């Protein structure tokens, strides 16, 4: 299996890249959502899984960057994809600003700190006349991009985020990140610059999450602060990463597939959808305590995207 890693990944990627050719519109939609959630969950995985930055505030980047896209396209007529890119940079700026306050905090304090930031942004945007308070904004570029274009943008995000994690983990600092995941204090004693590594990951995470959110809102069209900055986003990402396997690259790949499939399937069972989602999550965690890929890896050593060097 592992021997065929590159052919398998190649087939997968080309399969995804040719969805507009072979897939139905629904397959395209499914893959689009898959890629977007994959990119965002990979980033949460990078933070929580490797650097123990337990962020509960990913929605801060999602909403902030989504609003940046809306404001830039609507008020300034910026080309839609350029505004997505700028949105990503705005997200990094936000992350830098946030880090001034929350990087002194650890563990649960950091988690709550990020969440509070997201809540503050929610209050700010819902009270800000410029973005029409809580009414929300429509992202209406003069020439709305087609679904195929949006799909490719999201494919770039999904594949790009996965590749980015892989490259980071294979790079010089990658081993340090994995060591941090296993034991932060000892990795520090070995000479890992914890603060810088964390900051780096936080920046990367905010950038890719921001870009992805930009694409997401180009797809969504309508953005409204109460949901853009809602903790729901992070809850979804946590769900994906935990059931897939935290601290593995394959985890979010599998977890996202399960989540998107479930959310599509459960939407038809309106009143019990959340209940079912909860039961499924608990079952998976009971059967595979370190997530599907984490447990598979422990039991069989299977890891197709292992960042192992040697």
């Amino acid at each position, binding site marked *: 299996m592992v021997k065929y890693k590159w052919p398998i990944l190649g087939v997968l990627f080309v399969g995804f890249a040719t969805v507009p050719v072979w897939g139905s519109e629904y397959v395209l939609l499914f893959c689009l959502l898959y890629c977007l959630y994959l990119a965002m969950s990979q980033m949460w995985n990078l933070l929580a899984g490797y650097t123990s930055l337990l962020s509960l505030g990913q929605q801060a980047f999602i909403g902030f960057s989504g609003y940046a896209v809306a404001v830039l396209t609507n008020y300034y007529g910026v080309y839609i994809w350029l505004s997505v890119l700028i949105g990503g940079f705005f997200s990094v700026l936000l992350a830098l600003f946030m880090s001034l306050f929350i990087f002194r905090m650890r563990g649960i304090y950091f988690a709550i700190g990020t969440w509070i930031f997201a809540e503050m942004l929610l209050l700010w945007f819902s009270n800000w006349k410029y973005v*029409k308070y809580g009414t929300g904004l429509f992202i209406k570029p003069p020439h709305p991009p087609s679904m195929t274009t949006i799909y490719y943008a999201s494919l770039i995000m999904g594949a790009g985020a996965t590749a980015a994690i892989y490259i980071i983990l294979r790079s010089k600092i990658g081993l340090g990140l994995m060591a941090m995941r296993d034991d932060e204090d000892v990795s520090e004693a070995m000479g890992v610059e914890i603060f810088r590594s964390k900051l780096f990951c936080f920046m990367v995470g905010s950038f890719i999450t921001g870009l992805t959110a930009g694409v997401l809102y180009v797809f969504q069209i309508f953005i409204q602060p109460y949901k853009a900055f809602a903790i729901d986003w992070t809850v979804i990402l946590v769900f994906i990463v935990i059931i897939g396997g935290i601290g593995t690259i394959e985890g979010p790949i599998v977890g996202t597939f399960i989540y998107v499939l479930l959310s599509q399937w459960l939407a038809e069972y309106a009143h019990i959808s959340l209940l079912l989602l909860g039961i499924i999550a608990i079952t998976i965690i009971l059967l595979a305590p370190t997530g599907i890929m984490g447990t598979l890896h422990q039991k069989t050593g299977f890891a197709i995207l292992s960042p192992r060097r040697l």
Partner: protein
Amino acid sequence: MEKKKKKKDRYDGISRRDFMKKGAVAVGAAMTSGLVLPKVVKPARAARRKYILIGRPNPSTGPIASFGEPTPWVDERAVAKINKDGGIYIKEFGKKVPVKIKIMDTESNPTKAGEVASRLIVKDKVDLMVFYHTPDTVNPVASICERFKVPGISLDAPLEPWLEGGPYHWNFHAFWSVEKDIVPVYTGMWEQVKTNRVVGILMANDPDGVSWSAVFKKLGAKLGYKFVDLGRFPYFNKDFSSFIDGWKKQNVEILLGNTIPPDFATAWRQCQRLGFRPKVATIGKAVLFPSAVGALGGDLANGLTTEVWWSPHHPFKSSLTGESARELCDAWMKDTGKEWTQPIGYKHAGYEIAADVLRRAQSIDKQTIRNAIADTNMDTIVGHIRYNKEHYSRTPLVGGQWVKGTKFPWELKIVYNKEHPNIPMTGKIFALS
């Protein structure tokens, strides 16, 4: 050392050059399969069903679920009626085909609503989208309909936020406006009670609270009202004493609110305890549903006023079933044992419009359906529907007051109808103190 070990490792490491080589082979192989695959997969999805499919994103769970509550009761009933004689004649099929609906939950979440609408369009291939209930449902679904060029009929969300998403090509909407309808109805009710025209504002920090307070202050001042606005408050605020003190000090006699039900309950109870008794209390959203009114407890609901967009007293008939508003409400109460709510009429009206449109279009071609919607000119159970060039149709709004009821603990009486005198008054407004 590292290189020598590589071959027998469990983890298959790979050098950069190797990667390029293997990667190129893989991409090549996959390209070929990618090109062959479509021919195999495509024909499988050609077969077309023999019915008309209407997509119905609905807030079945979450904070606005009480709006979505009459689904699927209203929907199934209306569809059964449409399909009674075999459905609607469609040219493409050369015969009458039934209408089917597919309801999906938006969880009261606009993001989810967008996803659900996309899925209804691309997976279920709906011919028409019918959707309702607050901007959180209507705005995202309308946007998605525009993107995929699917005709959409929407109702029950204030016009102003809906218009933000325009100009629309595929969407048509019907409801009232905050500026043109809510303000005249509210102030019209206040005019009937002798007050000092000092209004205290109780509005949450949410889209409605923010926009309503702004609109009222702008237009109300021209009508000679003085507003005491002590600011927006967050959801689930527990202490309103500073608001109440402020109103008492400034001698407020009219309370104007727009809050979620639990917040109004807290505030209103504290008003009683602290001895603040305005002459009129007109509250949006919080006292829309009988369940919320009953939850206030005691006699607290007595005399509260609010907007009424639909009631059994509305003198309209369903074009679909011939039922009057009263008969529709009675059927609801008989089947569910619950008191009528305002969304029932609007939900029903959506199917009236859809059926009328499809009968005129006689087609499942989206452009034809869209044009048929544009030409709509009909009486429904919520009033006359005729879309203007901005694609909306204003529906009538009157004022109501909650009083102790006979059949149910609290009943809503129509006490103001100046703009729409065809909707009969069923009571006379009385002052709270």
